[in-house]
């Protein structure tokens, strides 16, 4: 646990309505649980008594005082899922993982949870694994779902996946192409832009495959760093007033030659992006 991180989180939410829950939520999002020292630090920084913080941390189901696994599985046992056999699915998850709901596997791979409603009632029984919804789950599906989760549900095969395709982009300011055919990423011409962060200048080469998140950069950009992007031709900063819906950082616009605009999040590691066809 990094005390600076906690301090940043506390400062960010201090002024906000109901700040304690927001602070704890972000700590939980960062560490996947609420470490004891973090709660003590929050207590010192906010002046709230530790017992009050502990009370909130244990009252709400979202918070966990135990470290959680790499993958989060929530099985819906809401009414609609219940009448369609959600309980059987939950049992199958418990059986396959060898832990009861609410527990984490000893290898810290999976944390299993039962949720009273995930809000996709029409498609029950529903399970959500790492943010991916699985609908009309059958008992026999469970094993496959867990296998896929182990491999990574976001993993895509860039070469064969028909959802992934190359786009050709240019600078929104000078309309100069940003494509660099001399340097391939994912086997296609890369998108080259210049960057700066924390007073370091460099370049980034992005995969032009929409759906691939492959990036090469010089120098290496640490995760979570917000980067300024510039056009290598007109040197204008590529920036819009829009901020990323996933993380709040600024979005970087580029014109798509075939039509439309693509915006990508300026934060390293964030997958926020929008392809607008208007």
């Amino acid at each position, binding site marked *: 646990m990094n005390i600076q991180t906690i301090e940043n989180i506390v400062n960010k939410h201090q002024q906000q309505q109901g700040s304690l829950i927001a602070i704890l939520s972000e700590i939980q999002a960062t560490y996947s649980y609420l470490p004891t020292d973090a709660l003590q630090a929050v207590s010192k920084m906010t002046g709230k008594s530790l017992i009050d913080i502990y009370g909130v941390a244990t009252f709400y189901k979202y918070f966990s005082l135990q470290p959680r696994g790499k993958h989060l599985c929530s099985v819906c046992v809401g009414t609609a899922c219940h009448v369609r056999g959600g309980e059987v699915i939950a049992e199958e998850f418990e059986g396959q993982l060898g832990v009861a709901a609410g527990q984490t596997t000893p290898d810290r791979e999976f944390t299993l949870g039962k949720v009273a409603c995930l809000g996709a009632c029409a*498609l029950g029984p529903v399970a959500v694994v790492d943010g991916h919804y699985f609908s009309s789950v059958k008992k026999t599906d469970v094993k496959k779902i867990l296998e896929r989760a182990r491999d990574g549900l976001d993993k895509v095969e860039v070469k064969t996946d028909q959802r992934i395709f190359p786009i050709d982009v240019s600078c929104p300011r000078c309309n100069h192409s940003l494509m660099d055919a001399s340097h391939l990423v994912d086997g296609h011409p890369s998108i080259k832009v210049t960057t700066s962060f924390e007073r370091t200048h460099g370049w980034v080469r992005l995969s032009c495959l929409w759906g691939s998140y492959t990036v090469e950069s010089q120098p290496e950009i640490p995760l979570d760093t917000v980067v300024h992007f510039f056009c290598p031709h007109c040197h204008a900063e590529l920036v819009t007033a829009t901020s990323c819906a996933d993380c709040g950082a600024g979005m970087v616009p580029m014109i798509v030659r075939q039509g439309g605009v693509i915006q990508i999040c300026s934060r390293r590691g964030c997958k926020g992006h929008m392809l607008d066809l208007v």
Partner: protein
Amino acid sequence: MARLNSIPELKHLREIIQEDMADSRPRIVVCAGTACQASASSDIIRVAKRYLLEKQLLDKIKLRITGCHGFCEAGPFILTEPMKAFYHRVGLADVPRIIETTLEGKLVEELLYADAVTGERYRCQDDIPFFKFQQRTIFGRNQKVDPMRIYDYLATGGYKALEKTLLAMTPREVIEEVKASGLRGRGGAGFPTGRKWELLAGQPGDRGKYLVCNADEGDPGAYMDRSLLEGSPHSIIEGMLIGAYATGATHGVVYVRNEYPLAIKHLIIALRQARDLGLLGESILGSKFSFDIEIVKGAGAFVCGEETALMRSVEGKIGEPRQRPPFPVEKGINGRPTAINNVETWANVPIIIERGAAEYAKIGTRGNSGTKVFSLVGKIRNTGLVEVPMGMPIRDIVHKIGGGPSGKAAIKAVQTGGPSGGCVPYWKFDLPIDYDSLSEAGTMMGSGGMIVMDENTCMVDVAKYFMNFLKDESCGKCFTCRKGTQRMHEILDDISKGKALMEQLDLLGELAYVVKDTTMCGLGQTASNPALSTIRYFRREYQRHIFDKRCDAFVCKELVGAPCQSACPIGTEAWRYTAHLAKGEYQLAYNVIREQNPFPSVCARVCDHKCESRCKLGTTGSRPLAIRALKRFITERIDPMSYKPQRQRHEGPPERVAVVGSGPGGLTAAHYLSLMGYHVTVYEADAEPGGMLVAGVPKYRLPRDVVRKEIEALIDDNITVKCNSALGRDITIDGLFAEGNKAVFLALGAHRSRRLGIEQEDAKGCYPAMPFLRAFNLKGEKLAKGRVGVIGGGNSAIDAARVALRQEGVESVTILYRRSRQEMPAFPAEIEAALQEGVKLEELVTPTKVQVKDGQVCGVTFIRNRLGEVDQSGRRSFVPIPDSERGVTLDTLIVAIGEQILEFNPAGSEGLEYSKQGTLIADPDTLATARPGVFAGGDVITGPNTVVDAIAAGKKAAVMIHRFLRGEELRQPAERNVPRVYVEPRMLSPDEQEEARRAEPPLLSLRDRRSGFDEVEKALTQEAAAREAQRCLRCDLEFTQPKAAARPAAPGGDPSTRSQVPASA
């Protein structure tokens, strides 16, 4: 996006956008709501974008990505504009075709939405029943806007209501307007919104006031708030802006569940866009009105839906409710006046202002104006979100919009109001859906969950489910809620396990009222509703659990045990003989069958295998185990004579009992009475014993030597069979008693066919089904000639048709049925076999007249029907189409529309009572008739029924007659019918299981079937039977496995190894 500083600027912007968007390009619309994303709609969107870019089609066609349209079951789907073609369950490969045909202004017919039952395709979204019967006032906007684009919202008239408010209305007028609209809180309690606002407006505002949008949709089974927030966040923002203007509120809060990331994302974007445009924040549209909204995320606590708990949660504290007064409008968040409304309530506000209160109040009924969005889910065909005017009968929602039950099981109730609500039983489905009617029926509107339950839903389990939820969610502040919900759950748990007594049910009722009366907040006050309403409407189910130890829905595990065993009317341990078969122990397997069933070989051929319909393989995604075929395999190998039943020693001189009827019911009773030492005389009206097995069931299903052999094995020294002795003709009940019989069991069967009741049905060539079958089965007479018509849709119709088809001189056989094939009561496999053999099926026709020439049938006139509403039997009814009569030429007409008992009130047998349907009346639990000492069972009391039910009646009759003769109470003590014997498992490995397919018995070739009466179904091969037996999931192991060998519960244990666990322990 430039900030707008005045109302004219907003108007101008809207005009520009509308002009910009008004082009003639067609458009495809794809839903990206959470439910559709779960059905992979995001892949559809990606592929669509790829196609549009690669083919450079952007100037020819447009794409809109929207929030939820409501028809989640049909997702992922593509809607096109302006044609409104609705393509459901679209695959990635379909996308290019849909785009191309839309460009050409055409339709891809085969991908259009089709009704699952009728197969009818709909060319326009508006014609699809799911949409047609809705009134989508607030929800309709979702398909017209991309929730991430404020311009879309503006283009569809968004923020016009705000415009109108700021331009032309005083805050007082806004409140009056909302009051006049009759809008009531959509969160469930139904408090008038205008009144709430009025109270807030009357509070001093010097320290600020709060408006809250409650989006803590914790109610399991409801998700309309999520879909509104995801699909049209600006509607909520606009509603709150109007509310703030009316009440003088300064701060807005949207309290939203953390489980709804997409809703949060869209709301963040919408708030930012609204702020950028100057629609939110300081000096809105250049006026003096300022208001801003922030998002507070709930961290998962159901009780935070309660307003005082919600406020504390917004303050960042533990979400415990507090006592009211002071009410939130006086003292709310941070001590400031606060008004809380639900998402859907806010979404209604702009509509009221835009249309005017008077116009709005026309929707719905008096006192319940407007529409309500319901989440129609559970055991229903068309699941999704539906918006209907209040006052619509539940029946219309369930059947017209929902399309009726999702499977074969009939719908028995809907649950509304979530954990605070209750159930409305099917017989009350005419109830109009509004706040007041629902609360009178013992439930509540709640946020709008409508969970449909069918015969496979156990109401005790539902009550237990909710109580379990509530005991976990009770914040613990009030003792009676905290402990009361726990205790109620314990009682319900006991009932579901068959451990409870009737007194506990009374205690549950009492406790329910205590909790209701002595708790502080809504959670506790309504916590008893699920239990109370299920007890009120489904008391019988509770009694079945408590007295009979039965869960008829097959849900309560402790009572169900192994579903196959529970489903069998005679409790055959199917899992057990399957287990022996898997290990090659055929004699042991036979003994297991024979212990419960004196007719193994007969049932191996003609049983309707209720066990298979409950098999866990079938209910969890695969196909059920072929239990009947396995039984057949065993009975082929073992001689019935090899089994020596256990006999009881009878004290004193043997008593005599008479059994009338030698069908499976009569002979079963005789057999078990004989084992108990009674001397039984069985009277048979025909020349040979066997009853319906010989007279009714065709030979190609049940060869006669099989029946004879089985009956022979049953008849012992204690049993005398007298044939050619009909009740009323040769014997009387009075006479049987006079001869010294101490009791009489009537098991006559139903050998007389019901009449059509139309003109000339007595003409030559026209036969009721039973006489037709009996003539052939007993005497070999072949009555069918030429073109044969069979009227009816039950098993005897199919039997008659298939028998006719095999008779020489028959050209064709056509079954005429008044409904459609789905509604036919005959076994589906039999229908399929008949059609394969060449029997034709004419659906949806009712005969009106028999055509006769020279005293001989020459045809029949019938009228066409169409399917109508669902009737009491849970099937679609039929409605004659006027002027659709036409004739068909026939040489033989067989009427198979049901059977009755043979003789109505035979002479010398007084003292019996009969029902209107022509059946004998006997107590279904004791089989005792109105005349002491006379018992009756089987078809004679139930009407035509299955062989296994007749055997069950025979077994019960033996027990009851024995108790009667010993002067004991006529009651069979109920016991949990769960597996007790451990048989070491031999099962397929998980991988093999995945690959395995259900074994289907080989059939006689079609040619041989048409030309003779050889048995159609053959036995499985040894290899196939062994493999099929190993496919069994062995539900019994949960109850029988020795403790030490039970699957490891410790973390890391792999339960898939349980089949390999040695049983040596």
